[in-house]
Every structure is written in C-alpha cells, then in structure tokens.
C-alpha cells in the first residue's frame, strides 16, 4: 500500500481526509467492481435456477465419466491458479520482481489451460448438437443457460489472462506497483470464486443417472 494511504488513514478524524477503509483507491475500486459483478453472476445463476425449477423435464446430460471428471480437472486448474496468484502477490509485496513475474506467468498458464479445456468441452457439446436454442435432449433453453453462464465466466477468465499479462509486463518493467498486482489478484480470485458456484450448479447437479 502506498505511504500516503497509511498517513491519511491514521490522520485525525476531524482533520479531514480520513480513509475509513485504509486501502488504496484502486483496491477499493476493484472491490466495488467485484460487488457489482457478483450480482451480475448471481442474477444469471438465479435465472438458470428459475428456468430449471419451472421446467419439469430439465435434461441432466453429463455422465460422471468423462464429463464430470473433465470438469473437475478444469476446477483443479482454476483453484491452483489462485494459489500461484496469491504467491505472486506475496512476492510483489516483498519487491521480488522476477519471482512475481514467474508466478504471474504460472497463473496465466493455468488460466489458459482452463480455457483450452473449456473450449474443448464446448466443441464436443456443439458436435453433439447442443446449441443455444436447441439440443438433442428436449428443453431447448438448456443450451442457452449452459452457454450463457459458462460463456460469461469464460469471458472473465479470458479478460483475466490478458489483464495478468499486462500486469506482469508492467511490474517486470517497474512501471506498476505491488498494489497493482494485488488488485489484479482480487479480480482473479473472484473469477475462481464464481466457478466454485458454477461447477456444482451446472455440472454436479446435472449428472446423468447411471
């Protein structure tokens, strides 16, 4: 955190300019973005839940092997990318530039692995005939909710990988501060957090009965 924030945060309450949260404005901005984005995802998830509750024969098309195992591997990639991210932030606070950039690259590789696996899964489903408004299992809206929810999340992961790339480049060249790395970390962890809800709701609740 920048020194001026510390100074402001410990200033006199009546002297003006007290920072009630004792964090930088970038970090507060990212937190507020996360609040609004979490509501976006909440509404998307609720729409999915609404449609599913209101539809008597919602398809449950994912066999445990391979679909669920495949999705579990994707979850593992994203969870692990959160750990490499948190290690990057810790290294950035210690001003270890090279180590920070390497951890950020590891995070980007794991995020990209998630994306590649996800795109593979999408193309398999599209080959099976799942489209936003039609699919082989009845209930046309199944495809719409599936692609809508996972697509929105994929967009976030894609933007996250690009964002981390920019941060890694800038921090490596001493253009960005450790706070910038921390703020990008908040975003990345949020994307991971959203998947913690999408994975059970989309995949684990739709296991094909054996």
């Amino acid at each position: 955190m920048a020194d001026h924030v510390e100074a402001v945060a410990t200033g006199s309450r009546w002297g003006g300019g007290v920072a009630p949260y004792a964090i930088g404005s970038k970090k507060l901005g990212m937190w507020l973005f996360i609040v609004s984005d979490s509501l976006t995802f909440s509404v998307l998830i609720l729409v999915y839940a609404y449609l599913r509750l209101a539809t008597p024969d919602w398809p449950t098309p994912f066999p445990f092997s391979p679909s669920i195992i495949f999705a579990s591997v994707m979850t593992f990639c994203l969870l692990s990318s959160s750990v490499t991210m948190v290690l990057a932030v810790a290294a950035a606070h210690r001003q270890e530039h090279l180590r920070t950039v390497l951890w950020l690259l590891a995070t980007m590789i794991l995020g990209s692995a998630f994306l590649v696996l996800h795109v593979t899964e999408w193309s398999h489903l599209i080959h099976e005939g799942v489209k936003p408004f039609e699919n082989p299992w009845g209930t046309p809206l199944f495809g719409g909710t599936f692609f809508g929810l996972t697509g929105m999340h994929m967009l976030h992961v894609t933007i996250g990988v690009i964002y981390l790339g920019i941060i890694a480049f800038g921090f490596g060249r001493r253009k960005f501060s450790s706070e910038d790395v921390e703020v990008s970390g908040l975003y990345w962890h949020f994307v991971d957090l959203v998947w913690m809800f999408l994975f059970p709701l989309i995949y684990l609740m739709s296991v094909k009965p054996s």
Partner: protein
Amino acid sequence: MSASNEHAHGGSKLYLWVWGWLLALTAVEVFLAYIQLPANLMLTLLMGLSVIKAALIVAYFMHLRFERLSLFLTLVPSVVLCICLILIFFFPDSLRMQQLGTG
C-alpha cells in the same frame, strides 16, 4: 502493505493449507455427484460446501480477513442483502409456474 501487516498474513504455508482445504471440499462435492443423492439434499449440501469455499477464498486469498472490519461490513452484507432481495422477489414465481404446469 506495511511490514507489520505482512507478518499477520501468515505466508505461503497458510495459502497452501487453504488450497488443500479447497481441493478437499471440491473432492467431497465430486464424490456427492458420484453417489447421486436426491436432488434437494444434493443441492443443499453442494451450496453449503460452495459457500464455505467462497468464504475461504474471500477471507484468505482476497485478504479480506486482514483488512479493516469496515471494509468487510461494507461489502459482504450489501451483496448478501441484494441476493436475498432477488431471491425473495423471483423464486416464489418459479414455484408457482411449476404448480401451474406451464413449464
């Protein structure tokens, strides 16, 4: 972060512990999907586990536990309140649709 704050963060050992817990809880979720419980029980258990996982991520990975309480009190109750409002206004209607059989 100041130097004194850095110590309170627990270091990479803590992060690896949290990671281990997250993986373990995910494994429990996948196991639940494998044994295939009734849908209502399954949904309750999965959402309970997911909320725990989300709390772990927010508290440790996103450092909210080490920030001022005022930040937590601003962010978390507002999100929870908004989600509850959405739930209250939308969900009864989906159950009504089910009863009408208009799905």
